[in-house]
């Protein structure tokens, strides 16, 4: 058993560093941006044609939250090539596995995190908006200087949870031909016929990654909440 672990671990770690980690990080960052945009659009009080935009974003969030991620990956990678758009993509939209994976993970993360960010913005007391407005700040200035810096603190724990979830979900990328950590563990299992050991090993590696992230989360929470440490 030990020789299996000794043999397999480096391969798993390489796959993790090559795919699991980069895909998680890039998708999460893109997802965060998307989540922020989505949250802001949905929170906007603008009327008129803007309402259509709001409906679109609402639909997007609903769609990605209520269907399985595996199916989303599948449709983006294998389904989009059927979508032929004259002029733009006459042969269908063909993405490389990595691009399809990152797009899907970002869209999925964006949908979930937009709800987190929306809630965190709403949790900032109205008085903070009013104090900013009273100074003559525009909505965007109030948002960027006053509201978001405070919302970050509130949304950090749920966002960290989403990130940890994403790291584990990248294992689904195997179904669109990305040989990430989980897939490597299965390949090795197919060779050594010891799936149970391989499963435990890969689970341990995920646990290490997730624990590191939790630790990072704790650190960030401490940094961002230095201004509330004395509050009860």
């Amino acid at each position, binding site marked *: 058993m030990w020789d299996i672990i000794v043999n397999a671990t480096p391969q798993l770690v390489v796959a993790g560093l090559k795919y699991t980690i980069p895909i998680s990080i890039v998708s999460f960052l893109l997802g965060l941006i998307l989540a922020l945009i989505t949250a802001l659009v949905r929170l906007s009080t603008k009327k008129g044609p803007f309402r259509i935009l709001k409906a679109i974003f609402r639909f997007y969030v609903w769609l990605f939250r209520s269907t399985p991620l595996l199916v989303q990956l599948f449709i983006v990678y*294998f389904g989009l090539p*059927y979508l032929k758009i004259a002029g733009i993509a006459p042969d269908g939209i063909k993405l490389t596995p990595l691009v399809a994976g990152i797009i899907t993970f970002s869209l999925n993360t964006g949908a979930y995190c937009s709800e987190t960010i929306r809630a965190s913005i709403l949790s900032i007391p109205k008085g903070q908006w009013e104090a900013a407005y009273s100074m003559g700040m525009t909505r965007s200035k109030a948002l960027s200087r006053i509201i978001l810096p405070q919302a970050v603190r509130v949304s950090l724990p749920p966002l960290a949870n989403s990130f940890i979830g994403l790291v584990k979900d990248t294992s689904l990328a195997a*179904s*669109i*031909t990305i040989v990430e950590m989980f*897939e490597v563990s299965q*390949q*090795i299992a197919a060779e050594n*016929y010891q799936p149970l050991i391989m499963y435990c090993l890969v689970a341990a590696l995920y646990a290490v990654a997730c624990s590191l992230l939790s630790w990072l989360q704790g650190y960030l929470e401490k940094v961002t909440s230095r201004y509330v440490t004395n509050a009860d």
Partner: protein
Amino acid sequence: SSNSKSSSKDSYKSELNQKGTLTIGLEGTYSPYSYRKDGKLTGFEVELGNKLAREMGLKAKFVPTKWDGLVAGLGSNKYDVVLNNITATPARAKSYIFSKPYIYSRYALITRQGDDSIKTLKDVKGKKLAEGTGTNNELVAKQNGATIVPSGDFVTSLSLIRQKRVDATVNAREAWYSYKKTNSTEGLVYHDVSSEKEPAKIVGLFNKKSTKLRSETNKALKTLRADGTLKKLSQKYFGADITE
């Protein structure tokens, strides 16, 4: 070349997913057909793919993916051909086209030691059999009246038998031999049922549009068969010639 003759001869190349490359879909976790050895992709179908590509003047590129991705990827032109121990069936012929068979897979029945109630395919009636979803093995088990318990791979199927969670599995004889090479088969019994069920024709799977590519592949296959390459590969990976 701009020569009109050679362009008609090479016209299958326009059906390729990637210029000068034969993109091959396979699972990569299916010993001895395609699997990793020390991290490197190897196996009967991997070597076959390489030889076919060389014969066609192309470079082989392998895309390992999950079973459902293999079929979907062919539909959306992610690969040119799938080599994954696929059996030709009428249902599949509705959506895809096949190459000529390159091996004939014999069925085996694996049971638990001490359970003498199953010896032949006929005995599986009403028994629980572990089979991979969508595999031909599943079809055979079903045809013989077994209750199917879905199982991800061959090892899982064997675990299920050992843990008395199912009674048997129908699988390719080759999978059994490959497993036996490196693993103990204690507690399991192997039954040859090749006399009961005709061997399955194992073929390459193509998108319906790739007719020219298929002809070209068939030509290459014929050459490999004629010069003994195919036989040699079969001996190497299956320990027997199963190409006829």
